[in-house]
């Protein structure tokens, strides 16, 4: 009998051993692959948009086609920016690469062939345009490079690029949002400090032998621009920012506010009264907490237009969205009708059609310096009216009205109270707003005017979310993944059950390591690490040593355990390792 017991025990160990070996040697390939990343094909259409009815497709004819020249100049603008400032996040550039970049940048310079004249001191015809052009580009192009590189500018992304042509010169401006650069410290004039600002660079390109070359450039920071706008609004002198152009430029920051000054309070009140209830405030919720907000407005009866940016964020983070108007009306959302990520618009259908929608204006009749009005709800209660002027008309409408994040999706009105654009997410938190132009709104209105409201197909928020973004939390008790006797021990660490108040969405135990993942529903407002403060404090009180304390990761250790606290996505992840 004993013999059999021993044989059984031995066999059991053998099986366990084989299982362990198998488990660690099994070569289960993951099905997830990224094998073919290609760019430039018709791939900007997000997978999620394929859920919508094909007939509602907005991808065609929204933006006016860029000409080859515009494409080239945009490419040249980016290349010039790269050669001028270095690559994104260019912190530790080597001397060799700076040399290479500088040489390539100097090759961009407009260097005309100057007619010779032996009678002059220089040996060139000093009255010729080429001679003057060579002096302008020969002075500004190299010197601005040196000045900007002295500031160690660090930029992370491109903002808006605008192109205007003025006779033989093409002027391209590029906004670099939130750049970091050196500035003189207030405390010690000898020391640098890094400041954060927006930088706008203006490049003047001139054609030479069939190629556009850099003729002139200058830059300004947002502070300058804000100061300048303030100077204009106070009707002070207008020459402050006029930096050397010998050309009249549409891009010049010198705007005339006369048309805005002629806009009366009565006209603004009329626009407000007429549209007050056509504007809705959209909130995205997760477990009754707001995760993000935006504006929208009725473009057709029962159809709200807002930004795709807001909707995508809501699909990832939230469980549902709500819509409410200034008159207290709350609308039940049936679903999403269509969206176009490229132009940042989405159309939402409510359950019952409201016979109330905005009138659209005519994009072609708009002019730079025309007054523009934005009506939006900034905090979800009450509407705010802001006015300014149109500063640029392109595929987008740029106005001198500053926006905050929750302003996205709000309508931009012309003087007559007609909607001329929808404010995109692109320019929020800047001194200038950017609105998708009227043409896309016209296309939406035309498309759905011809369809009976009941026949408009909308995919529900949940269906869309489940299809692409759904987070499927198991209903089973998550902590059951950890053996009870183990959890009894580990749960004592930092009194974790008491000190972490977030919802536990995953827990695992493997080889003396416990991992816990908590969902932070309010990560937009309070960071994951802030929500672990009591837990961290408790660890210190319990004699743990702080090994690392950064904004995204903390490590504590004692002789027995190592505790790793991580901030990843919207999760607080705590890993407890028995040493």
């Amino acid at each position, binding site marked *: 009998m004993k013999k059999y017991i021993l044989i059984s025990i031995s066999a059991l160990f053998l099986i366990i051993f084989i299982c362990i070996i198998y488990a660690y040697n099994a070569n289960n390939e993951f099905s997830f692959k990224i094998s073919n990343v290609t760019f430039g094909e018709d791939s*900007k259409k997000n997978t999620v948009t394929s859920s919508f009815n094909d007939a509602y497709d907005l991808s065609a004819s929204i933006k006016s086609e860029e000409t080859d020249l515009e494409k080239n100049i945009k490419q040249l603008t980016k290349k010039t920016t790269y050669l001028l400032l270095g690559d994104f996040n260019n912190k530790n550039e080597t001397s060799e690469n700076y040399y290479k970049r500088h040489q390539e940048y100097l090759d961009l310079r407009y260097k005309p062939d100057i007619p010779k004249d032996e009678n002059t001191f220089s040996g060139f015809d000093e009255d010729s345009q080429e001679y003057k052009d060579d002096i302008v580009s020969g002075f500004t192009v190299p010197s601005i490079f040196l000045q900007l590189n002295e500031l160690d500018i660090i930029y992370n992304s491109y903002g808006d690029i605008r192109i205007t042509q003025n006779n033989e010169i093409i002027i391209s401006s590029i906004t670099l949002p939130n750049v970091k650069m050196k500035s003189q410290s207030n405390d010690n004039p000898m020391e640098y400090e890094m400041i954060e600002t927006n930088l706008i660079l203006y490049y003047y390109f001139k054609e030479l032998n069939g190629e556009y070359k850099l003729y002139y450039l200058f830059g300004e920071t947002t502070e300058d621009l804000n100061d300048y706008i303030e100077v204009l609004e106070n009707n002070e002198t207008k*020459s402050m920012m006029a930096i050397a152009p010998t050309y009249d430029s549409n891009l010049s920051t010198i705007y005339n506010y006369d048309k805005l000054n002629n806009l009366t309070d009565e006209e603004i009140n009329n626009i407000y009264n007429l549209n007050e209830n056509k504007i809705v405030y959209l909130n995205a919720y997760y477990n009754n907490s707001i995760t993000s907000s935006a504006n929208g407005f009725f473009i057709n009866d029962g159809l709200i237009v807002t930004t795709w940016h807001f909707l995508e964020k809501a699909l990832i983070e939230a469980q549902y969205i709500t819509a409410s108007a200034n008159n207290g009306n709350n609308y039940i959302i049936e679903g999403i009708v269509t969206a176009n990520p490229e132009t940042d618009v989405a159309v939402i259908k409510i359950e019952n059609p409201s016979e109330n929608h905005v009138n659209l204006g005519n994009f072609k009749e708009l002019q730079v310096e025309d007054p523009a009005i934005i009506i939006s709800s900034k905090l979800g209660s009450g509407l705010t009216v802001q006015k300014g002027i149109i500063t640029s008309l392109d595929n987008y409408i740029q106005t001198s009205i500053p926006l905050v994040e929750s302003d996205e999706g709000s309508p931009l009105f012309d003087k007559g109270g007609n909607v001329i654009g929808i404010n995109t997410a692109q320019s929020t938190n800047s001194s200038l707003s950017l609105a998708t132009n009227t043409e896309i709104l016209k296309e939406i209105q035309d498309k759905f005017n011809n369809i009976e409201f009941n026949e408009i197909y909308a995919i529900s928020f949940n269906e869309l979310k489940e299809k692409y973004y759904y987070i499927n939390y198991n209903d089973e008790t998550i902590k059951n993944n950890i053996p009870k006797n183990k959890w009894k021990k580990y749960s004592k660490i930092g009194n974790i059950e008491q000190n972490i108040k977030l919802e536990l969405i995953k827990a695992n135990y493997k080889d003396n390591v416990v991992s816990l993942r908590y969902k932070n529903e309010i990560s937009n407002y309070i960071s994951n690490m802030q929500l672990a403060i009591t837990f961290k404090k408790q660890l210190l009180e319990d004699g743990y040593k702080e090994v690392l304390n950064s904004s995204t990761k903390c490590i504590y250790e004692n002789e027995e355990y190592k505790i790793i606290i991580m901030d990843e996505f919207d999760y607080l992840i705590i890993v407890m390792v028995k040493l």
Partner: protein
Amino acid sequence: MIKKIFNILKKYKSILIPALIIILIGIIVLFIILNSINNSSLKTVDKKSYSFKYDKSWKIKEAEEDTITLKHNSNSEIEIQIINLNSEYEYFSIDELIDEILYNIGNENAEYKLLSKKTDTITKYQFKGYKMLYENKDNQVMVTTFKKSDKLVIINYKAKIEYFDILLDSVHNIIYNFNLKEDTFSLKNNLKLNTTEINYSKEDSLNKVLKDKETYEIASNNYYVKYTIPSNFKLNSLTSNYSNFTFENLENKDITMNVSIMSVNIYEYLNKDNSLNVYDDYKSYKTNEDYKNFNESLSVLESNYDSYIYKNSYEYTKAIKYNDNYEMEEYNRKDENIMLIYALNKNHILTIEISAKGIGITEKLINMIDIESSKNYVSYISSDKEEGYILSSLKRFEDYKKENVETINIKIPDKYTELDKGNNIYEYRHYGLNYDYDMEMYDYEINYTLTNSNVEQQVKNINNTFSTTYGDYNYLTYSSDLTLNGKKFKVYSGGYTNLGGILFTNTNRIRYYINKKVLFYELSNEGYLIIEVNGNGKEISDEILNEVTNFEYKVEKY
């Protein structure tokens, strides 16, 4: 009882021993597994285009130049792809590419759902990038992507749901340490930068007199450098942005040293095609028959900074000496020039130029030269503020012995603005008063300078700067002796018409008359403090003269 147990063990030893061995192996395997999960010592992979560190719980499955795969015991995997973007996308930002990356991932992995997407800074070099979290019923995948010039990096961490969080810390460490190297730029090919060994002179007479080292400071072009040189070199004058030394006690021979900071990239300075380069000063020597056997060479200099040493040598056939009859005669003199070039950063260099006439420069002398510290700064002006005044000072040595230093402590009302802050200025201060936005200039500008030369020479120098082509002009003439703030000044007055605005543009090309008053204050040991007051289209009032002459002069031990 013990005997009974022993008998049983003996009876079943043929089964027990293998069982014990199996248990032992099992324990060892478990130990190895646990150890590998918690092992924190790091290994390094260093390839031509990238490098990273990983802990021993991961094994390298593949490490090509564009693909890396790491495998964990738990079967988790990290795949790193480096994608070369074509020229059209080279200058795109990651924000412009992310939608297409997402589309590609979504297309290929339909059964995975996107749980989260966020923008973040990736690696310790803090590239802006994106992180996406995907999930299917068994696995989680974190895709991290960022871009550096024409390279797109996609890091793809795949794990079973139960392992994902456990290994996340070690995955973070791999991503944090990932370094995408810059493309190697061949200086040799592009600059024809041929370096050879430097042949130093074996001049014992020089080596014998070399003593200890001395530290000096120099500050200009937004850099401040402390450097050491042999103490035999004596400073000729105290200028903080250009230093000139002479080697003491060399009979009939001459060694001088010039130190300066330039705002130029080191390789541009080594490039013969650049307008400013190390070879330029000696270019003509190659073709001039007065200089024979001209040789030059360049070598890498050992230093904490990227640095090079340039040397040339030649025979100067027109050197002059006195013979025994005290008559001048020409002779062949062997000269050498050495330039040490240190890259302070990518666009600043420190140069130390040593010129030796009739003597060779030894390696021992060169080895005594070094940079002690360097600092990038905004302005060397350490102005203080005190009850509505800006306090600042000018300095110079009283004489060549360098024993005393003269200091002028200026106390000017804070309605004045300090200008030219980018330069280092012991010798010069520049202030403006009332900025006129229409004219784009200050109504008044005040310059403070220290000089060793006499009043007449200085007046002549200033008069030479007057424009005579735009309208009326009046050269400086002595106007009066004035006592201001208890100090005596010689005052000269004059002025000229100037043209404002920017060359070749129509912007503010306005003519205006500059009223000029120049005040000379005599210093104790030959020399003057010059206060130059310019009224740009404005009269200079007594009040302004009073405000700008509020200073204290003192001589102290250096």
